């Protein structure tokens, strides 16, 4: 049966020699195709004697199987080689830079971010966010807040006025967010817990004063809140906002027409370096004013000061943003220089939360 051995030998040689899948297919057709050499051999079986068929048939079938396996094995090798060759050709320069991701490229202004931070903290203490108009009347901005007509305290506010109307009344730009206190007390029954962030205006301009700035006012009205509660709220706020485990605060008696008693609050910090560090050091930095809501303000808002009591506090949003994030010129906040916005702004999806950390 050397003819079968010879054929197998030559077919295996042809399979090994096939350089690509097309050549291999030609070998397959030449061997196993309808007119292939192996198929031709199989056709001879019919004319054989049963004995020959038995011996020679087994040999031919073994040849067919062996060639088939060899073809399959070679096909795998050739396919891998072809793929490797293709992949080698397809190689690109992955160091080429792409467009930045737009979701990381945009920026949120520090004032918006800090307002969101404040909101997260005070929401956790049960404060809602209240707002009011920037163009205010004398009543809401001064009179209802116990600023007597002509009192020097009014003068300290550097108010922007609009032209008087026919009846002599004239609108003004609110000098603080405190009018929102009045609007809230007039429209809502206690208990009240609100913060009122927003734009405020004073006719003043230098490195730390701009004619427009931002304030947040807090107001709590119920039947139990005291200076002690006020202290706790502000201490908790400062710790949460500045993200420090402890902060030492100094409460100093002061004066505001709309609170009695009134206080100013300093926090201990270290200003020896280029950045302000809280909770250490020997400097005191004034950050806010506060006090118990003045009985005259409660009365002006239709609340009985012998039954209802509470406190209010106010601070500059821009100012605490500067302290926390290290800007040194307030005017730059409103200049919209894209370099400043990119440097001090926040990524769009960094929404401050208490569960995820305010600025983590």
């Amino acid at each position, binding site marked *: 049966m050397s003819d079968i051995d010879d054929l197998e030998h030559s077919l295996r040689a042809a399979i090994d020699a096939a350089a690509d899948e097309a050549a291999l297919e030609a070998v397959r057709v030449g061997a196993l195709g309808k007119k292939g050499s192996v198929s031709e051999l199989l056709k001879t079986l019919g004319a054989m004697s049963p004995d020959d068929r038995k011996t020679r048939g087994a040999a031919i079938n073994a040849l067919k199987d062996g060639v088939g396996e060899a073809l399959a094995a070679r096909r795998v090798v050739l396919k891998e080689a072809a793929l490797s060759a293709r992949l080698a050709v397809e190689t690109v320069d992955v160091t*080429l830079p*792409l*467009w*930045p991701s*737009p979701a990381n490229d*945009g*920026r*949120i*202004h520090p004032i*918006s971010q800090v307002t*969101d931070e404040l*909101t997260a903290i005070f*929401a956790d203490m*049960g*404060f*809602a966010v209240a*707002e009011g108009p*920037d*163009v205010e009347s004398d009543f809401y901005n001064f009179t209802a807040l116990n600023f007597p*007509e*002509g*009192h*020097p*305290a009014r003068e*300290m506010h550097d108010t*922007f006025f*609009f*032209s008087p109307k026919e009846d002599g009344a004239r*609108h003004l730009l609110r000098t603080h967010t405190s009018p929102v206190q009045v609007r809230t007390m007039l429209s809502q029954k206690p208990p009240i817990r609100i913060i009122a962030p927003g*734009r405020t205006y004073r*006719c003043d301009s230098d490195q730390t004063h701009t004619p427009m700035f931002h304030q947040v006012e807090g107001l709590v009205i119920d039947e139990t809140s*005291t*200076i*002690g*509660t006020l*202290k*706790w709220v502000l*201490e908790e706020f400062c710790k949460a906002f500045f993200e420090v485990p402890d902060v030492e605060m100094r*409460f*100093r*008696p*002061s*004066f505001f027409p709309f609170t009695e*008693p*009134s206080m*100013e609050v300093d926090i201990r910090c270290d200003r020896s370096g280029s950045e302000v560090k809280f909770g250490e050091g020997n400097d005191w930095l004034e950050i806010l004013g506060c006090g*118990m809501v003045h*009985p005259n303000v409660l009365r002006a808002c239709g609340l009985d000061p012998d039954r209802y*009591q509470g406190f209010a506090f106010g601070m500059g949003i821009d100012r605490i943003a500067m302290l926390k994030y290290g800007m040194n010129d307030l005017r730059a*906040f*409103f*200049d*919209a*220089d*894209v*370099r400043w916005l990119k440097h001090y*702004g926040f990524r*769009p*999806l960094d*929404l401050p939360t208490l569960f995820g950390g305010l600025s983590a």
Partner: protein
Amino acid sequence: MKFTLSWLKDHLDTEATLDQIVETLTRIGLEVEGVEDKGAALKPFVVAHVVSAVQHPNADRLRVCMVDVGGPAPLQVVCGAPNARAGLKTVFAAAGTYIPGKDFTLGVGQIRGVESFGMMCSAAELELSEDHAGIMELAADAPVGVSYADFADLSDPVIDVSLTPNRADCTGVRGVARDLAAAGLGRLKPLEPRKIAGTYASPISVDLRFPEGELVACPVFHGRYVRGVKNGPSPEWMQRRLKAIGLRPISALVDMTNYVSIDLGRPLHVFDAAKVKGGIHARYGVEGESLLALDGKTYAIDERMCVIADDAGPLGLGGVMGGEETGCSDETTDVFIECAWFDPARTAETGRRTGIVSDARYRFERGVDPAFVPVGLDVATQWVVDLCGGEASTPVVAGTVPETDRIIEFPLAEVKRLTGLSLHRAEIREILEKLGFFVVSPEDGLFRVAVPSWRADVTQKADLVEEVMRIHGLDNVVSTPLEATGTVGQKVLTPLQIRRSKARRILATRSMLEAVTWSFVSKADATRFGGGAPELALANPIAADLSDMRPNLMPGLMAAVGRNLKRGLSDVALFEVGQVFKGDRPEDQKLEAAGVRHGTASSTGSGRHWIGAAGPVSWTVAKGDALAVLEALGVDVAKLQIARTAPAWYHPGRSGTLQMGPQNVLAHFGEIHPSTLEAMDVVAPLVGFQVYLDAIPEPKAKPTKSKGALVLPELMPLTRDFAFVVEEKVEAEKILKAVKGADKALVTDAKVFDVFRGAAVGEGRKSVAVEVSLQPREATLTDKDLEAVAAKIVAAVTKATGATLRG
């Protein structure tokens, strides 16, 4: 309010140190702004006498001096000052002394081979002035060896207190002392009675000439005449104190009034009687009058001001400043002392309108003690006689001291109710009494408190709580947690606040930077952008370009782009979410989200790039921004109408309006009008958009938060393409609407995937290629079904737009 430590001790008997006093002042609400203690810093510096000065052997510009510093023998000192010469009295610092102006500690050393045992100092080295031209030159009779600080009267520390507007009583040193005594820092010394009897009637009368019932401006006016005075310099101790707090000594008569003003918070005025014509009276000013005031400036007077006048005209602005012409000089022999009370509000107004800042105004506008008018006059008269001699008249009096008596019912529980402090009644009584309140206790738990005349700021029980709390100490108030609300996770933002936050974040994810621009713009810009109404123009703008409330965000954003371009920063994309002003009522304030993109600042990138440069921005990206905001806020943008009604600052052909109907416009977008760009000084290309956040209707409240069951069709969706040839003016929106309406059951979506213009479709026409998505519901679509729906679509589009199917 400035005073020196020794001055304070005139009124306060205390052992407290300067540090304790300063710490206590701030703690009780008299915030110390600064302490100037030159004496401490300059302690080691002594007065010295240069005995001899010879040329240094090894240096042209140095001299070797022998200096007597009060020790057993003169010291050798090498000095480089040009004025170092024998006979000079100057200031010496021994080796080991810290030199504040140089920030170093002096050592013993050799200077060019000659030993030097100290140095002679310039005023700059002592931080007394900027003068560093040479060493200080003292008077020839300066006592050698004594501390320079003592010699120059610098050893009395100056305390500067920032007074809150309510504390009129602390505009005098005595008031500060009273507060400190109440805080336990010593004892308030009694005020020595200084009363001098008058021997004759004043030749100058006083009078109040106000309309009937209008004595408020100046309800009381006392005066005394002193004849035969001799004016001259005030005593040295008085000059020293005045200089220490920054007042320039002038003459005894002037210095004395300043002294009483600071010492007791009681401003006075002294007229040269020879220059007064007739009697003196207080009245309203008359339009057209003017006054040459003591500051050398002339001020116009009108009927809103209170003036002091004689028969010839105004002599001074009541409570604010006296006049130059009737002021005292060295020739003055007879004087008239004025002691009156002026209304705080009017004083403040006059001060504000004239711009005069004076020690008198500072006190009168806070509210000088009215009951002190007669006492103050006696004190002043005594000073005049003590310092200048002369003979005093009996007082002349007009008006009556305004009533100040006030009793406050003070339930002691108020202290705990408002502060949380638990104080014993005795403690409360002690604090109030030391502050000058008079306390009786008609029943348990109640005080009846009479307020002293100098505390006009205390009118009700909350004021008394403050007094008790600040003196007892705010540090003693214990922090108490705010009660929890008892519920979890309430929503704290209003729908509008949530919109603002979402609009901000979505725009930032489109590569835009959030700007915060001024709420006011120039009149021209306000008018250009649809505003400029007179009721929104500021009467007192801080600058001409910040004069009118902004009608929308576009002018501020465009100006911001312009500023960046001028700094060489191009491809800028800015947005703002903020208030805009349509009128002066609260409801006219609206919330807008707007943005502008310049150059190639698209939503995905800008500038040249190897993948392919971002082209110039076009209306498409602005439309995308507006839609992104609306979509983020829950608006079904597929249902919006698009109209060509954008405002004048947009390019009329490349802009649009997004609306729910003509009455409910939600947004505008488009390319900015070339004329607007020119006016705003910004170069093209610039596109922008404005979204009106208040205009978006609130979604209807639903009973549950369920999103409903998801029903997935079992059959596969398929798409078919159509190309419609239409007139150029036919809008794509119209074609898509017709397609979608052709078979609402089958057609689920339609997209424009190509717009082609060219000879093949003919002049003035375009081919709009649309991919239509079909979703079979019950059975697979047969060829016949597909032909039927295609025919319906073509028919609908043809009917709506006159389109033909492109062959």
